[in-house]
């Protein structure tokens, strides 16, 4: 039996999936300052979870921004290709992947065979990414879960800045004016939606859409984004492992 591993070293979290045609095990740890170590550790953890040794694995594929720092992988593939493959594996009807990760947000058009037909990523700044939400929850002194809960059903304040640093100043201004936390929370989520709308004007959404990345863990935010965009989303049970899964699937196809 062929066993493969996919390691996705992201800016915030490092993920691993062990795969043999189905998902054998998975693991996720914070990337921290040392992407190389994180990749090693998460691989070990996923192997432990599967009750396997490194020698049992036929093919290790690395992805994510830290893929270049991994010395033990057989192949590296970008997270764009991996997300398409992973989403297609989980939801075979996927034609679009929306991924909001720690420092990137991307929209990927997926071809019938699971390959990438087109894609777009955010600019080099953190606008519309997980980092943006993280910084904003920091100012409001709430968790990401609380942000989603506060945002749902509340009238959003209009945040004009997509830039994380400028949005921070804008929010501090709103707080000074006495605008409610809930209204600001709602405005923050709307900012992500606006960014997605601009990305999907370049790479259009086609049904079915699979939503991956850490932000997809938050059901309220998913609901707001999906209703603003006007599309239903497939949400994976573990939205953060889609890239690692795709990497493992690619390794599996090639083995």
């Amino acid at each position, binding site marked *: 039996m062929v066993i493969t591993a996919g390691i996705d070293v992201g800016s915030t979290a490092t993920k691993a999936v062990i795969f043999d045609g189905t998902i054998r095990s998975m693991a996720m740890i914070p990337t921290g300052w040392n992407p190389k170590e994180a990749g090693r550790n998460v691989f070990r953890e996923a192997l432990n979870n599967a009750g396997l040794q490194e020698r049992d694995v036929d093919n290790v594929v690395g992805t994510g921004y830290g893929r270049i720092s991994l010395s033990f992988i057989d192949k590296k593939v*970008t997270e764009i290709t991996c997300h398409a493959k992973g989403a297609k594996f989980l939801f075979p009807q996927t034609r679009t992947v929306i991924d909001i990760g720690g420092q990137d947000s991307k929209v990927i058009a997926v071809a019938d065979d699971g390959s*990438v037909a087109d894609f777009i990523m955010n600019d080099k700044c953190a606008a519309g990414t997980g980092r943006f939400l993280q910084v904003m929850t920091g100012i409001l002194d709430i968790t990401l879960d609380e942000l989603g809960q506060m945002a749902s059903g509340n009238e959003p304040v209009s945040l004009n800045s997509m830039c994380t640093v400028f949005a921070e100043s804008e929010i501090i201004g709103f707080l000074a004016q006495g605008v409610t936390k809930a209204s600001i929370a709602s405005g923050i989520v709307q900012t992500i939606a606006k960014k997605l709308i601009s990305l999907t004007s370049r790479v259009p959404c086609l049904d079915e859409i699979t939503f991956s990345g850490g932000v997809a863990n938050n059901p309220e935010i998913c609901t707001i984004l999906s209703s603003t965009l006007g599309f239903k989303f497939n949400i994976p049970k573990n939205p953060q492992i889609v890239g690692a899964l795709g990497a493992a699937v690619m390794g599996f196809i090639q083995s």
Partner: protein
Amino acid sequence: MKTNLLDEFEDLRTNSVTSLSKAKENGKKVAGMYCLYSPSEIILAAGAIPIPLCGTRQDPIAVAEKVLPRNLCPLIKSSYGFAASGTCPYFNFSDILIAETTCDGKKKMYELLSQYKPLHLLQLPQKQDGEEALRYWLGEVNQMKERLEREFAVTITDQDLRNAIRLVNEERRSLKDLLDVGKLKPSPLSGMDLLMVIYNRGFCTDKKEVVQIVDRLTSELHELYKRGVTPFNIKTPRILLTGVPVGIGSHKVVQIIEECGGNVVCFESCGAYKAVYEHVNEDQEPLLAIAEKYLRTPCSCMSPNASRFELIEKLADEFNVDGIMDLTWQGCHTYNIESYSLKNYLQEKKRRPFLQIETDYSESDIEQLKVRIEAFLEMIS
């Protein structure tokens, strides 16, 4: 692949500083140019040396930002910074600068630049079609001729212009032959080497000499192809690069494409195909022929700019490319906006894979660019 000839091109830039210095001692005049819209024929006809000016490196941008806004395109900031810091030898040699109103940022920057050197500004029309646009532009080209006659105390005859036209057409012919080496599959030349050659050859002060050495390189490359010598293989993704001007110093996207396993086989940019795909008509009244050719330059400062789309489509076929990358400098509104229409045009017509890259001269986004470019190469492989 490294032929000895490539080393010769590496040296061209430094050698040209020596030859310019000698030429100046012998009383030769030098006209510095920033843009493809500056007709080098008129400079040659005036008995002067046309020389491209620096503007493709990050280093002088900090100096420029003391005066210019930060959110301006890096090409404008770099050009100004080189001049203001006195670090461009070609600028220092120049007796006059030939500038052009291609965009708002440039034309206002030139106002500041004119404090350093005599500067002649060519006022471009904003459209290419129609008799009145050509008439107007012909007037501008004529004023440039008169300005050079005054500044250099010479008379430019029609015969001078005709000779210069023939010389520059020959230069175009030889550069086009070189660029067409990229049509070979796999190409015997990397995009980085090609960029170095097309960038450095511009600094050669002797047009006849540069034609000869470019021709020699071209035939050597055909020879290498016949012997199967190439850094690439038949599966290497072939990329056409279009968009803003690139040169050595602002080459990071070309470098990343090739480090990630692609090959830039065609540069549609200003220093490359845009400059050579048409000649100045040698049978026409010379100044009018020059005006016509230069006005047809498919630059995003023109509206509409349909000829750029058509040129890219034609080159994509001729060079058998797998994907098209459109490079935009941050703050270059015309190329940035045009990218949207270009993508739609190319995808409707041919379903050509297309990627726009927006960046500046700095190295801060190299890893992010690698993700996009690698993913694009994975997509088209």
